[in-house]
């Protein structure tokens, strides 16, 4: 079953594959420059004290972004 969620809805330790990066402008460009492109595999590593920002692993490195920015990224969850 295909489970689609937004990146900010994923719990710590959950993994998935990027389906789509929504939005436009600087944030969209920056997110894609950093390797969050359709097909990329992502794992949520941790979240900061107030649950924001979040830290993910993508393309073998660690990246942080705010929850509001992660909300624009559609993920297909994998087990």
């Amino acid at each position: 079953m295909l489970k689609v969620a937004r990146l900010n809805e994923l719990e710590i330790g959950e993994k998935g594959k990027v389906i789509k990066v929504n939005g436009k402008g600087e944030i969209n460009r920056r997110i894609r420059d950093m390797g969050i492109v359709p097909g990329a595999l992502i794992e949520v590593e941790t979240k900061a004290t107030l649950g924001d920002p979040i830290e993910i692993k993508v393309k073998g490195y660690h990246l942080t972004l705010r929850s509001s920015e992660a909300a624009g990224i559609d993920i297909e969850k994998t087990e």
Partner: protein
Amino acid sequence: MKEITVALAGNPNAGKTTVFNSLTGAHHHVGNYPGVTVEKKWGSIKHGDARVKVVDLPGTYSLTAYSLEELVARDFVVEERPDVVVDVVDASNLERNLYLAIQFMEMGAPLIIVLNMVDLAESRGLKIDVERLSELLGVPVVPAVATKGKGMKDMLNAIVTLPPKGDGWHPVDLSYGNELDGHIYKLTEIIEGSNLTVGHYPARWLAIKLLEQDEQVQRLVKDSDVGEDLLRKAEKVARHVHDTFDDVPEGLIADHRYGFIASICREAVHRTMDERLTISDKVDKVLINRTFGPLLLAGIIYLTYTFVFWTSEVPVSVVEGFFGWTREIITRLIPDGLMKSLIINGVIDGVGGVLSFVPLIMLMFFAIAILEDSGYMARMAFLLDRLLRYFGLHGNSVLAMIVSGGISGGCAVAGVMATRTLKNPKERIATILVAPFMNCGAKIPIYALLIAAFFVESRAMVMFALTIISWSFALLAARGLRSTVLKGPHTPFVMELPPYRMPTFKGLLIHMWERTWHYLKKAGTIILLVSIIIWAMSTFPKAPEELLAGKSGKERAEAEISYTVAGRIGKGLERVTAPLGFDWRTNIALVGGFAAKEVVVSTLGTVYSLGEFDPEASGVLSERLERQGDWSQLKAFSLMLFCMLYAPCFVTLAVIKNETKSWKWTGFAMAYTTVIAYVASLAVYQTGQLLGIGV
């Protein structure tokens, strides 16, 4: 001798600085790129029969027009046309690092890829077939371990053997999918048939940038004969992409770049073992843990300060000793008179007072270099972003705040310079404007003096309160500025958390020295000038003898100083400052404090005519202050609050001017802080008087 210009590019944390340092050693020049505050470093090295000039480009992940660093890097390559672009690539993080390399290939720049940290990649089970990679990319690839100096010679060999400039640039023909390729081809044709190619811009690259809706390129083509046509066509493509893919063209382009990279990595990179947790990952499980992370952050900052104060104790006293000794020699050599007074009270006490802070500041920069080079600074931004964002700042503001004295003892000069990591001008200016509220090292002697005199029983409590108060004012002021004069959206916080690395000693020293030198130059020149001015103001005009007749000791000294310019200013300001509890003598000290806050203490010493004042012996002055009838706990607290908040010192203002490139903001920084200081002290003093607290 053949001269070759090399532009050194690479992602942040890919080891570009290490490559640069190992090439040029400490012999390099530092400046700014024209018109912007992005630091430019260059140096040269002889290799065989060639002189290789290396220009360090800012570390970037991409080459868009959005960030200043990326724009600077790209402009340099397009406009200066270096003979070679060397892209330092982190082998353990190949895919994302190649994204930048691909963009240099799109420009057609003669490229050499330095595959750095191959040892680290191998230890993580990544086997990279260098030859295959070079073949697939069509550019030379040199494996290296820059921290151990490995591969540097091979890199230089590759640089001198690359075909010379005359050979022309060859933009790579990457496919961006059926949807866009046709459009790029068409736009390229239009550009080639126009007068646009006169510059150094490859036509195909311009076409791609137009589809990416790159603002700089849009401006560039606008005025050409085909400008309107190009912009209209690009706009049409954007609409089409939006309608059919619900996406933006630059998104599709980025996706295809990464697609191309993925296909290369599939062939050239082989995994020899399963991915597992690295040491760095394990350390992070603790250091950025949701519960312990913030506590450890506080602990690490505390340790940093302890380290700085502990290690600087001896060197500071050595430098102080040196100035004391110089003072004594000069006292003996030069006969009494104006010249002696100028040299001793003006130059040595002024400049010496600042220079004796240098060991402390050097060690502070050393400690900060450790936090930065090890990768912990990025974690601090991660942990504090949420809090700072609420007040209109950014995770990256944290560095500037802490350096300025977030835990007592920093320096706003260094803090203001540390705002360069902030991309958004509004967030950056807001940070610059509030950082001077922090309790810098120069305010500490003031607090120490007044606490010793009036708050002996609650020393630690008052000091802690002052820290909290300074943070509160800084954050609230930031919030205020960001919702009025600096209103604007938050910038994205999309940041790499680089793996923890052991900083190299050489790197730390270079880092420390660059910043210290900056401080020395600025502090030395301005402080010297201001010290002499303050000295002159509190020496002239000389009181006529008949006014001093019959007075001696304390009374005479007081009469002398109140006749001078400084004395008159102090008296003149009394009307304004009386509601805060300050008399004319305090006013003189505060005026002197504009130059540097520590001057407040030495001026108080002078105007209370206590003879030679030694900041180390603040106990003496504090005892005298305590005995003065017109001093109270309330007045002392009002003064501490005022000193914390009022105008940044001259050196800080000079740096603010330098960093903001604006007299308007520099003037604002001076004015609004003084207004806040006045209102805060007024409120405290008047409320205290009314309720009878601390009077």
